[in-house]
């Protein structure tokens, strides 16, 4: 999986913790750190054959930075990749449901607010990767 903080966002603390948590959970984590552009994620995902991209945005510009990420993945040929996003995704304080709906509409598979326990996310990711593998197995007959 590829991990990073998108856009012009410099919040580094959560990123270091996410790296640690996902590594401890057995994932192979490629951490791009802060200030990562959409293409940098995709480059890394293609290079490493990653199954998931985990995007963080803390600084409030998430709405602008995260738009079009799924479309870009499609363009670059990794349309199926699991896309998660989490953090303080919008400017200001908005209802959780509103945020989740907004980012799901952008094509993110799961959307997390800062209060979600990280174990939950880890479990989702394990599940999603499994079912993804199963599906891919079916569809593409590897």
């Amino acid at each position, binding site marked *: 999986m590829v991990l990073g903080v998108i856009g012009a966002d410099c919040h580094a603390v959560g990123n270091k913790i996410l790296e640690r948590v996902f590594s401890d959970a057995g994932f192979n984590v490629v951490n791009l*750190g802060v*200030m990562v552009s959409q293409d940098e994620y995709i480059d890394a995902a293609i290079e490493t054959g990653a199954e998931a991209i985990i995007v963080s945005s803390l*600084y409030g510009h998430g*709405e*602008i930075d995260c738009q079009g990420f799924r479309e870009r993945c499609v363009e670059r040929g990794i349309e199926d990749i699991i896309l998660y996003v989490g953090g303080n995704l919008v*400017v*200001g304080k908005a209802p959780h449901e509103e945020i989740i709906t907004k980012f799901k509409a952008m094509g993110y598979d799961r959307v997390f607010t800062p*209060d979600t326990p990280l174990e939950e996310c880890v479990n989702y990711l394990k599940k999603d990767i499994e079912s993804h593998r199963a599906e891919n197995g079916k569809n593409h007959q590897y």
Partner: protein
Amino acid sequence: MKLFQGKIPENEFMQMREDALQTWPTGQDVDLDDAIQYQRGLPDSMNFARKMYEADQAKQVLLQPRAGVALVEEHIQLLKYLEPECDLLPTTIDAYTRLNQYNEAQRGIEKSKAAGQSLLNGFPAVNHGIAECRRVVESLSKPVEIRHGTPDARLLAEISFAAGFTSYEGGGISYNIPYAKKVPLEHSIACWQYIDRLVGYFEEQGVNINREPFGPLSGTLVPPFASHTVALLEGLLALEQGVRSITLGYGQAGNMIQDIAAMMALRELADEYFQQAGYKDYELSTVLHQWMGGFPEDQAKAFSVITWGGTAAALSKATKVIVKTPHEAFGIPTKEANLEGLKCTRQIVNMLADQEVPETKQMLWEVDLIKRETRALMDATITLGNGNIAEGAVRAFQAGVIDIPFAPSLANPGKMMPVRDNHGAIRILDFGKVPIPEDIRKIHRDLIQKRADFERREASFQMVIDDIYSISKGRLVGRPR
């Protein structure tokens, strides 16, 4: 940009300005004579430097919020709304402007206009330009500071001073290491030498502009000696270019004794290093930032953290306190939440205004410890610079002499690991290459060991993680769950 040694000569400086003003169309409107004329026309009551000086003399604690939204009208409304409850006003700049991405900022302005609400996390002053910024300043009657996080803030500074802002936060180290990833330290420090020179120019013309290195850095478990070293270096760099009004900052760590001691040490160290370097004619003041790390989501708990920050500011007699809001954990605060943070802080600062903390042995021990630690880093840096502070700073980061916990910059060594001791004071678990003498290292080791013993676990990265979350989870020391 390359580093300067000593004050930049005026003609050289004026040439450099040409380039800087080219970087975005609004730069064309900057006219230095007009700017000075405009600044001279502002009343003393709107001058940040004067206000800080008076507060420092009167041992008052001034309150300042953070605030900035995308559009001018909205921004004015916001500041006018906050003005009655604070002493000093801010204009917080958005993150695109901070990275000189004026095109993105422009998109943000357009989108905000369309959405009818701010989609930027601050005020894009460069894009708005001088005339619009003057509209902001003229709508207010208290001094206004530009607060940002911009490694290359030259154009922003030019526009800000021309528009009547009278204080400018930041520094070549403090606005790079925590805020950027790939910007070389040489570049940001050189940019800030330019900015300090610009302030120096205004000072030469009799216009006072306050400068404030950003104290808290990554806001996360930064030990006093690390942020003090940066504050002192940026203070020296500023004075070198002719800055006179200088406000050194510190982010609350949470342990009362360590925080008060840190503020005492900061002032004493500043006078020590500034005078040693031959500066006499400066006006020193201090700022305490209420807890800069992760906040609790619950607002009642957030108020508690805010009050504790106000307590630290009041008891340490900071010249000003930067105020957080009950929305901190979620997002840019509404104006109401911002006002609440101010009111809460005002109440505690006023209730403590007449109270004094007597100096105790423990406090003086801590002051002395912080001074010895800071001197170790400062002296190593000065030696590395061989007479050039700017060079010294760059080499100090390269050599691991200065190391800021949790900072994203590739120029930061990132080897030093802090952790709280059993009373919640920030100590060092792994010094990396920071040249703290062995006797002091032993003090840290012993204090951390006491906590480890108490918690019946090894001091490890897990302990650090627990400390990162601790205040947001309702404690100071991140005890095992």
